[in-house]
């Protein structure tokens, strides 16, 4: 990974010729327009109190997954073209000049390189499967066309985010996905809690966006450009290694990434985002959008390589998030909340990886996580769907998402169970499932850094040496991995094992979901098994045993992403020429496997689904740690007291004093002043002709006098 590639030939020349890259981005937008029209027609029909045109409900089922399928095929074709071609530098496709504002020249241009095409594959591929799933899951909803329109729009913005060739264009996608996230979280906006959750997500993200904007402005002030190619070429020349400016830029970028990718302290919106439809949670709040922060850090790897202390901060933030969120997931009863905190925790793993400079490991985990977490969320969606049908049959008001009301579902939802089981083994890190290879690489990077072979090992942060920090990161991530295995085992046990607690009458209505939902589950379950095999590193002990399984050659992902990481590697090679070779220890891998197995075993041995009661019968946690974790460490309450409370008090103060007396006073005062002046002027209008004549004559005399003298 840290070997510098020799540039072949004097003039690098790309032989890669993309096939309609613009169309990949455009197709979801076309889908959005068509579904949007269908949605408007449906709304018009409803408002005129007549039957909704049937085509508005049928068309999105074809259009929405259809555009995704075509976009995915195009992405795959481009991927194979790129794989078969020589690509020495990112290929930038210019369309038009978007922001020609003085020194700031931004083109509407797409950047095609191994990283962006990989992200495009994940987005269109997983996205397509989730669109298909959504057809089954959302078809009966009155807002179905609107839902599909938003989903298509989301994919459009996400593709702009990853394919844009400059920071401003990335920011457009960044804001766009935030908007779609807001729209989809509050999709059932008639319920106030959902609308509030949408607002929370949007507002928390704004804090992050402030960081992104600040980083962009500082970059522009120093470099005079925001195009990726130019920024990453000039940054190592302009900025001093570990200098204050580049560190500030990277910390602001971290703030932006923390907002979008739900890291401490801005993670609070993601668990609430589960108010949206479950496929949305799978696509936006697990597989794609929330990984935008990770993508941004990898994209800006050259900048982060220049700012090692900021990188270490990224890693520490990620590690703390991973542990913190994992503890909360231990005690949640809502199946989607478990997965939400699990997502926050796994995003923490990715942040830890990219922070430590293990960019490939971060992207690798991003990819495998997209597979198994999408699978888990869709599985949860299938479970909730079945539960809803069961509870609906008897008009029961029991919570369809509460695991205490489930139990024994593997008999009723066998396909869902097997897909989710595969994904659970993947996230727990059991070999040879996908998550084992990626999570192992992340934790392995920490052990390597602890051994002094990382560019961050020499950095001191808060008076503590980098290698000590890395040991801390390794230990904490291992703890988080143990908790991950445990809470996933707990979720599976309570949902699928033991006796069924749904109720006698409801039980007969529990059915496996339809084919449109089964196929994406099976596909993602399969990917959760084999997804890790594209990056089996034969140089790592124990992992090498799995080399025969490798897809696309050993360590294929490392080779694939290598061209993207030439920049940061050059920075490190120039500034830290004496870095020791990284050394993978066998004990680290064994520990990772042991942790995963131990977590699942602990859940299996210590949790008794047989003794669990339903949500009504089973009281909430009464012991202090249980209460603390179930209530998410009371972070929302603390934020409410410390930030939102004072802020609202300040707002109230402003509204009752500044707004009411000063602003309103100014506005009303202006009106009153004019009114009074009018009164005063009105006095001259006596209605007496003589007065008018007199004033007229006076006026004439004044004018004449002016002429005379």
């Amino acid at each position, binding site marked *: 990974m840290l070997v510098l590639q020799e540039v072949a030939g004097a003039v690098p020349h790309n032989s890669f010729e993309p096939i309609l890259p613009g169309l990949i981005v455009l197709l979801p937008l076309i889908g959005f327009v068509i579904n949007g029209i269908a949605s408007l027609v449906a709304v018009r029909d409803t408002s005129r109190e007549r039957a909704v045109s049937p085509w508005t409900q049928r068309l999105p089922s074809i259009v929405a997954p259809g555009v995704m399928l075509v976009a995915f095929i195009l992405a795959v074709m481009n991927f194979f073209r790129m794989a078969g071609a020589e690509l020495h530098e990112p290929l930038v496709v210019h369309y038009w000049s978007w922001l020609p504002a003085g020194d700031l020249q931004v083109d509407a241009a797409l950047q095609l390189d191994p990283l962006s095409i990989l992200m495009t594959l994940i987005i269109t591929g997983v996205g397509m499967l989730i669109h298909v799933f959504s057809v089954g899951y959302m078809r009966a909803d009155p807002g179905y066309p609107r839902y599909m329109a938003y989903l298509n729009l989301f994919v459009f913005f996400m593709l702009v985010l990853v394919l844009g060739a400059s920071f401003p264009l990335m920011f457009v996608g960044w804001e766009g996905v935030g908007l779609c996230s807001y729209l989809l979280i509050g999709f059932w906006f008639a319920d106030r809690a959902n609308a509030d959750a949408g607002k929370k997500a949007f507002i928390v993200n704004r804090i992050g966006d402030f960081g992104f904007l600040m980083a962009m402005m500082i970059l522009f002030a120093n470099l005079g450009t925001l195009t990726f190619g130019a920024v990453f070429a000039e940054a190592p020349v302009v900025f001093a290694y570990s200098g204050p400016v580049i560190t500030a830029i990277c910390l602001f970028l971290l703030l932006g990434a923390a907002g979008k990718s739900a890291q401490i302290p801005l993670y609070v919106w993601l668990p609430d985002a589960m108010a949206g439809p479950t496929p949305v949670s799978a696509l936006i709040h697990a597989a794609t959008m929330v990984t935008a922060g990770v993508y941004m850090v990898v994209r800006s790897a050259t900048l982060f390589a220049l700012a090692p202390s900021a990188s270490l901060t990224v890693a520490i933030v990620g590690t703390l998030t991973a542990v913190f969120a994992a503890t909360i997931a231990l005690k949640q009863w809502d199946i989607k909340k478990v997965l939400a905190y699990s997502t926050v925790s796994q995003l923490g793993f990715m942040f830890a990886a990219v922070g430590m400079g293990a960019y490939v490991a971060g992207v690798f985990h991003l990819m495998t996580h997209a597979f198994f977490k999408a699978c888990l969320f869709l599985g949860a969606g299938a479970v909730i769907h079945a539960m809803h049908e069961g509870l609906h049959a008897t008009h029961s008001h029991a919570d369809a998402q509460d695991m205490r009301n489930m139990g024994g579902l593997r008999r009723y939802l066998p396909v869902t169970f097997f897909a989710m089981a595969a994904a659970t083994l993947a996230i727990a890190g059991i070999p040879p499932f996908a998550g084992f290879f990626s999570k192992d690489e992340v934790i392995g990077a920490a052990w390597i850094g602890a051994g002094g072979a990382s560019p961050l090992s020499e950095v001191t942060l808060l008076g503590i040496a980098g290698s000590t920090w890395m040991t801390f990161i390794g230990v904490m991530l291992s703890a988080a991995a143990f908790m991950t295995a445990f809470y996933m085992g707990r979720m599976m046990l309570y949902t699928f094992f033991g006796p069924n607690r749904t109720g006698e009458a409801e039980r007969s209505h529990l059915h496996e979901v339809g084919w449109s939902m089964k196929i994406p589950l099976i596909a993602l379950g399969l990917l959760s098994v084999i997804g890790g095999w594209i990056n089996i590193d034969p140089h790592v002990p124990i992992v090498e045993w799995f080399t025969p399984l490798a897809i696309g050659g050993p360590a294929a992902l490392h080779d694939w992403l290598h061209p993207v990481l030439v920049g940061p590697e050059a920075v490190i090679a120039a500034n830290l020429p004496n870095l020791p070779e990284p050394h993978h220890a066998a004990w680290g891998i064994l520990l990772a496997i042991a942790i995963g197995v131990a977590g699942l075993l602990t859940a299996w041995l210590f949790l008794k689904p047989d003794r669990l009661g339903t949500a009504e019968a089973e009281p909430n946690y009464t012991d202090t740690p249980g209460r603390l974790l179930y209530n998410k460490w009371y972070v929302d309450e603390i934020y409410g007291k410390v930030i939102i409370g004072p802020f609202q008090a300040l707002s109230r103060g402003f509204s009752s004093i500044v707004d009411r007396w000063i602003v309103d006073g100014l506005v009303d005062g202006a009106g009153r002043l004019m009114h009074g002046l009018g009164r005063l002027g*009105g006095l001259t*209008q*006596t*209605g*007496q*002709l*003589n007065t008018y*004549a*007199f004033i007229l*004559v006076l006026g004439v005399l004044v004018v004449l006098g002016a002429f005379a003298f």
Partner: protein
Amino acid sequence: MLTLNIALALSAILFVIGVAGVIVRRNAIILFMCIELMLNAVNLAFVALSPYAGIQGQVFVFFVIAVAAAEAAVGLAIIISVFRHAESVDIKNFSLLRW
């Protein structure tokens, strides 16, 4: 030269009398007469100056007379109408359009 000065002085006196009448009197008919007085004061000035300033002054006098005649017709009609309505031609009573 002397005649011109006398004519202009007379014109000025007549005009001022007219202005003073419009300012101090309240009877609509009187006001009307004062306006006529002013118009004719101007006419006198036009005619007196025409040997020096050209024939246009005399032409303009005819226009003024014609307009004054039309004005008198309309104005007297309005005054009659007002009198029928209010039994008075005192302009002090007519201030309805004031705020």
